[in-house]
């Protein structure tokens, strides 16, 4: 038998790979830092904000002495926006890297896939950006198993409520609008969103003429806009996240005469103006915090520091992920250990003023168990409009930094 050099080479490469993987076996030491896992899609701007925001928070906490002397270490994983990768990352975080808590993803699909694992592996987890109602509904339905999951962002229904609330003053009162068409992408998080839209828009004085759901793979929005235009609504109420740049650009190129208003996750990115070549002008979108609005005293400093450190403004999930680290740190401090049950118990007591408002979690009896409390005094949400390259907050009135303006092709009701 003769094995050529190339075989030997090939074999040794493979051997090394296996050997390396074996060398990962964990070695625990006493002065280990407390680890927090961050799972996100790091190739997307809004995705990379999650580890970035978390790292900023960790640095600040460590500078101030850490958690009872123990430093925080952020371990980040790229999930390529895939549920399998995320589950693997989650398992690695829990079993290999022995993190104390996880901050995971802004995609509902991914978070829902992780949720049972949080229960199985008893790993406290919070999502900084996913919106599906199911996340908290499952906690409510199966609290004993899934109590480890917290929802660090508004649920779809809550978001819809914020959008409707704002529409009462912005659309109905200021612009005298009477009708709307709901346009949202076919995805998990938009099902409750749309359901709530249909209810609350009408209640707020906007008659919903049509409800269009589009495939998240859509690239050509011309037929959709034409169809909407044919129905002559005063405004398009959006529920989009997977798509964003493309509909906005086509809306502008086709000069669709009604404003786009509602939820548009990609619009929260600071690069949105550049990605759309300025087509974003006039688009109004929902956000928890904006860089120019002092939602709380922490908001503006965070946005400033973030921009100084990473070169662009934080996306929506960067704010929440920054807050999440602080909340985990507080909970671990209070719990006095990294025991998951104790952390959860402490986390449930959270009353923390972060960058997006005052955060408290709803009790297990609420349908949004472990979701955030919204409304006066807690999280209110903002409506922000892209104006000449800058996001300008237009609602609520007490924190607004400007008035709505629209591109010339927009035809507003008399």
């Amino acid at each position, binding site marked *: 038998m003769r094995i050529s050099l190339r075989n030997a080479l090939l074999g040794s490469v493979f051997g090394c790979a296996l050997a390396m993987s074996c060398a990962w076996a964990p070695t625990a030491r006493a002065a280990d830092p407390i680890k927090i896992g961050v799972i996100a899609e790091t190739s*997307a701007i809004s995705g990379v904000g999650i580890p970035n925001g978390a790292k900023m928070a960790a640095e600040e906490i460590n500078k101030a002495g850490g958690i009872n002397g123990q430093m925080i270490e952020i371990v980040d994983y790229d999930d390529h926006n895939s549920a399998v990768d995320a589950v693997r990352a989650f398992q690695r975080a829990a079993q290999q890297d022995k993190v104390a808590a996880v901050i995971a993803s802004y995609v509902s699909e991914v978070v829902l896939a992780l949720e049972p694992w949080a229960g199985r592996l008893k790993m406290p987890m919070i999502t900084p950006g996913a919106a599906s109602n199911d996340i908290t509904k499952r906690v409510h339905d199966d609290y004993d198993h899934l109590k480890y999951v917290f929802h660090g962002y508004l649920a779809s229904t809550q978001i819809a409520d914020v959008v409707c609330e704002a529409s009462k003053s912005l659309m109905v009162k200021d612009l005298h609008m009477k009708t709307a068409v709901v346009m949202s992408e076919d995805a998990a998080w938009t099902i409750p969103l749309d359901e709530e839209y249909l209810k609350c828009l009408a209640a707020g004085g906007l008659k919903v003429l049509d409800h269009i759901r589009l*495939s998240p793979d859509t*690239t050509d929005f011309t037929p959709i806009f034409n169809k909407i235009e044919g129905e002559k609504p005063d405004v398009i109420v959006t529920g989009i996240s997977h798509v964003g*740049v*493309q509909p906005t650009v086509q809306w502008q*190129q086709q000069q669709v005469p009604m404003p786009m208003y509602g939820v548009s996750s990609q619009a929260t990115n600071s*690069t949105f103006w*550049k990605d759309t*070549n300025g087509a974003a002008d006039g688009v109004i979108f929902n956000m928890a915090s904006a860089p120019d609005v002092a939602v709380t005293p922490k908001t503006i400093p965070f946005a400033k520091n973030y921009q100084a450190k990473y070169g662009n403004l934080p996306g929506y999930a960067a704010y929440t992920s920054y807050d999440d680290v602080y909340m985990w740190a507080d909970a671990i401090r209070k719990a006095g250990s990294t025991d998951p049950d104790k952390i959860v118990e402490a986390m449930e007591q959270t009353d923390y003023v972060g960058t997006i408002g005052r955060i408290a979690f709803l009790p297990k009896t609420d349908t949004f168990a472990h979701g955030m409390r919204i409304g006066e005094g807690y999280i209110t949400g903002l409506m922000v409009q892209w104006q000449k390259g800058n996001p300008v907050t237009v609602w609520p009135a007490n924190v607004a930094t400007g008035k709505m303006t629209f591109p010339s092709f927009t035809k507003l009701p008399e």
Partner: protein
Amino acid sequence: MLALQILIDGFAISSLYALGATGFTLIFGVSGVLNLSHGAIMVVAAVIAWWVAGTFGAGPYLGALAGVAASLACAFVTYSVIVRPIQNSPSIPREEKEIFVLTGTLLWGIMLQEAVAYLFTNNPKTVRPLAQGVVMILGVRTPLNEILTAVLSWTAIGLLYLLVNRTRTGKSLLAASMNPRGLTLLGFELSNIYILVWAIYGVLAGIAGVLLGAFLGVSSDNAGTLTASAFSIVVLGGLGSVSGSLMAAYVVGYLETMTAYLVSPSIRTVPVLLLLVAVVYVRPQGLLGRR
């Protein structure tokens, strides 16, 4: 009104499909290669055009030029680093070259896609269009950019037609697609012909990519879909038949547009897939293909 709208919108998107598929089918016709990195190359063209025009600040024209140049470079690499070595490799049996070329170009496409995502994120980008504004065509408000997209697509296809049918070089390309051995015997170097074809392909894919970027916007995640759509169009039209591909592009474009308008935008691609299956079963050589 609706009919006219479908007619106009379908035309623009179809001409873009046609341009995208033309290069793909040209490569298959002349050198028998199904290039699965096609979509990724189009994405590279669009993203580079976006970057040079916007971030780099060179303006839309230079941007478009840079996008096409990038696509050309990718096409050359695809040919010289992946396709040619596989075709010349003595250790790959002839009957398995095809699967190796497919796998190789597929991997290369993934590499391009990941590189774009790494350098520019996978956020969708839109190339600054060369023309802004709208015109009314019989009461249908049509963006100038949409018209420009259709015009430029057809100009590119027309130029290709002239090149192939009216020039000496083009004739040799056509001849190579029919009988490469015959061409060798007439003193032509096939390797030069292949390089030429890949160059033309690079330019076509580049233009298609830039136009797509300006018309609809492109994200690195679209690479796979773009390849699949070119592949379907080319099979529908008949492998290697350029006129078949053009026709198929219109069938696909209009079928999709009509579905989106008349049925629902969320099942836009389904009728096309069903048609494709039916055609492949009933007439595997495609609409205009010869066996």
